[in-house]
């Protein structure tokens, strides 16, 4: 299938890209890795008149690491998968490694995935659990929005039509923190039916000082499960604690149904994913090397 006719522009700089977006407003779409935009255009579900190809803007493709982390919006899933992350950032590897297939990971970008705001996207929960925020630029200026506040509904964000995500900022993590992202899916490479990212700060006695719990692929937007987080703080992460946390997550959830999974299945799988993610985070805390993957 072929997209509707459109104009193609390749800006020379980030500034130029922002000018073009300001100029064309809602008629324009930025093109990053094209893994979501192009299929939508081919099905004529997206019909931009102007495509602004930001894909070669080197300034957006860098990772800066000085304690806190700045990931350029064009950094690909594959680049994140390939990097050697310290233990407290293992979530980034977990997330990247379960996105689609090799081809998609080679081209798809973190900024594009966040802007696309697919309810089954993997970066939403992972970055929420790391307290990340996105830097947003436009001809009007710059702003920073926590990933937890980026998504307004399925496929909707707070981004204006003239705005670009320029980078994702991940704050420095506690040196002893560990986390895990578990994606339950029908099969390898498929979209999730329930995904959970946890990031645990450990107290000296091995209990959980605090935990971030983010849930994806179950509701229209990924969300932080604050009741479960409050419950886990200060506890020993045993089976009973995980079970109660899972119950609290389920209570806060209105899952959707699609061909991959019914609402009732998703509700149950959120509990399984949470329990497994907490288990893996604990084992990682104990120094084990464990793949989180598809749980």
């Amino acid at each position, binding site marked *: 299938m072929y997209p509707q006719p459109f104009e193609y522009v390749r800006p020379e700089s980030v500034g130029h890209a922002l000018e073009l977006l300001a100029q064309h407003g809602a008629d324009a779409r930025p093109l990053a890795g094209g893994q979501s935009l192009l299929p939508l255009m081919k099905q004529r579900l997206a019909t931009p008149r102007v495509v602004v190809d930001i894909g070669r803007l080197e300034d957006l493709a860098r990772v800066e690491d000085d304690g806190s982390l700045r990931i350029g919006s064009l950094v690909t899933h594959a680049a994140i998968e390939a990097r050697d992350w310290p233990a407290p950032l293992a979530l980034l590897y977990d997330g990247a490694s379960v996105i689609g297939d090799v081809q998609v990971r080679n081209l798809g970008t973190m900024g594009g995935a966040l802007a696309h705001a697919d309810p089954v996207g993997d970066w939403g929960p992972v970055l929420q659990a790391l307290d990340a925020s996105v830097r947003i630029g436009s001809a009007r200026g710059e702003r920073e929005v926590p990933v937890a506040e980026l998504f307004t509904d399925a496929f909707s964000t707070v981004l204006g039509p003239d705005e670009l995500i320029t980078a994702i900022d991940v704050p420095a993590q506690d040196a002893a923190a560990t986390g895990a992202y578990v994606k339950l899916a029908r099969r390898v490479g498929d979209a999730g039916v329930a995904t959970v990212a946890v990031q645990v700060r450990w107290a000296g006695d091995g209990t959980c000082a605090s935990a971030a719990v983010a849930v994806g692929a179950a509701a229209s937007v990924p969300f932080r499960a604050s009741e479960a987080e409050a419950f886990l703080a200060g506890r020993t992460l045993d089976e009973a604690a995980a079970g109660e946390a899972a119950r609290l997550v389920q209570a806060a959830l209105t899952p959707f149904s699609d061909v991959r999974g*019914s609402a009732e299945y998703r509700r149950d799988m959120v509990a399984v994913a949470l329990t497994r993610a907490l288990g893996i985070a604990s084992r990682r805390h104990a120094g084990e090397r464990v793949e989180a993957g598809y749980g």
Partner: protein
Amino acid sequence: MTSPGPFAYVGKPTPSREAPRFVRGRGTFVDDIKLPGMLHAVIGRSPHAHARILSADGSRAARHPGVEAVVTSPEHVELTSPFRPGRYASGLGTHVPEYAMAAGKVRYVGEPVCALAASDRATAEDALSEIEVLYETLEAVTSPAQAVAPGAPLLFDEVGSNEVWRNAISYGDVEAAFREAEVVVRHTLSMHRYSSTPLEPFACVASYEKGGGTGALTVWCNAQAPEVIHDALRETLGIDDVRVVITDIGGSFGQKIHLIRKYVVITALLSMRCGKPVKWAEDRTEHLMAGGHACGQEFEVEAAVKRDGTVLGLRVREVDDVGGSLSTATIHFTNKLNNLFNTYRVGAISLEGTAVVTNKCPVVPNRGIGKPAMCFVWERTMDRIAAELGMDRLEVRLKNVVPTGAFPYTTPSGNIYDSGDYEGLLHTAAERMGYDELKAEQARARTDGRYLGIGIAMGIEPGGRNLSRDLALLPDVKGIPGSGGTSGATLRIERSGSVTVTLGVPSSGQGHETTAAQVVAEVLRIPPERVRVASTFDTTASPWGGASTNSGNNFHLYEIGAVHGAATQLRDKLLALAASVLGLPADELSFESDGVVRSKADPARKTGLVELARLAYNNTVLVPDGMEPGLQTTFMYRFPHAQPFAVPDEQRRVRAQFTFPASVHMALVEVDVSTGRVDVLRYLVVGDNGTIINPGVVEGQVIGSAAHGISVALGEAFAYGSDGQLLTRTLRDYGKSTTLTTPSIEVEHRGMPSPFTPLGQKAAGEGAAIPSPAAIASAVEDALEPLGVRVRDLPLGPESVWRLINGLPERVFD
């Protein structure tokens, strides 16, 4: 019997002839064909599952710059004739004309309703939305139960019921079997809609030229059965001068026999309207919506059993969900005559069934056509019997299989199983799998809360084709619609001594060129590299090849039979010619390697292929009187052992097919009982394909078809909403397994040559797709045995298994 052979080339792993071409991107597929002035077509499809077409207006689209031809459904019906009803709908009472486009009504989402051709594909897509089709939507029926409920909307008013067909057949004394039964085992079973999703969807280029009579039409398409296209174009367009060319095909699996004809007709009609060549290439979503599905089949099964596990008889009631067309309504039922008794020596069976139309994609032949479901019925029932009698699943099968000494074995329905050693297959599989050790491991794993399961299934892969089979079900039909069938091969020995082969079928990637070259090499004693097999099929150049419909399975019988026959004829002719050249009687000559013919008595007296070929073509005065010059021949193969029961006798016994390879599949799975996910840890196929010509080719067929059957069992499935919308419009949504979830498949050959074929070969194609769904079902049930789970329905995607574990009903989409 004596085994054929020893062989010089047959059975040896020779390098593939076609693989390098494909791997290097040098194949020629329909979409690679570019003709001067060629236009590009798109098809407009129904967005509704069930609606009346009120009007269609293509005038605005026709004015779109670049558009050169538009056809809408009402015009199409005016301009063309309906297809003639074919054998996939044998025995339907009421005939409803079917055209390439919907006529008056649409009955499934994606049914073609209009088409146009423009200067390029993008323009064509732009213009398509300008064709205005107005519908009056009707309520959709999406399940057989809904379709036959009182007051359900009718798909075909002319038929008067959505249950369009009902039939029953029985062999042996079924009532007596149930009277004598010590135990009756009952259950309901079902298999779902799936497809083989060939990598290359449908494609066609049509080029019409006006001229004498009805004009001349050439089509290039990726249909697997050229004669279906030939017939369709003549029937619907009334053109007599039709040429069908088929280049490389990216997979067929039966999908490309039937529905593809609609699109070839539409593309040809566009070409006729504008007088230019037109190309059409289907996209993936179109193929998933409207390219044809395997039939959803539901069963009620009862088995009459003795306490020692002996099965006395089986009663099967079947309901087929055939979708929104009558043209293939009965094939999933009739085809069950082919493996009606599977591998078992059981005396009585009754099969009763209905075909129900629904507002879903029409069903088509697909990798086994009903045979995977018949095998599923038998194999699930064998497991059930084992469970109810407390027997081992292997033991129940050993008790009931046709014993090794009983071949050739005639089943009560008249199939003659040529050769086999089912007990040997079962024992070999159990040994190689380590069945007893696995059972111990399973017990240990259970104590750790891990759920391992061992699956067993066995099946036959009937090969050969007998069109008169359906008469067994239709005793009122008079006359023979065709028994058996024939396929040809043309061989020419070139003056260089190399050989050119033309086959009556195209190839869909099953290695036909490799296999055919090897057989020629065997007969003519030349290296296979000296044999060139045409990779393009062309009705103006190729011999007839209707018998095999290009299935890998039938190819090994018909085309190989034809190639063997033609090569043997040429070999005899070479001997006769050599006898004349050397002045010796032919029986004093020996045919040696590299085409040397030598006197047995005086080895110095010899001649060879090159010398004989030059003579045969250029020195015809030296060709003996009465002998045709040249070294070219066409051999038409007929299955030589089609009697008895080539046509049904008074007990309705008929040979549905002619050779019967068999295999035993064993699977080791682990079920994650929290998520319902099934991982296949090991998968083994021990098979009997008779004499294997090319081990790599046969192994490829086994692995490919097993991988598909496993994916079918583990969750690939078409899903419809209650409004008849297809919910699985991409391969990702559809849930096809990828290489990452497909286990490595171990294959062991335990070939028993067929006494009925020239090389002892049997069919080798779709075989492993037949028992594999049952093998996975068996393994999952075994894994979940401690939880009391019974597996009756496919597919077994994670949510389905989770539902079984939690005692929840099957999911229904809304």
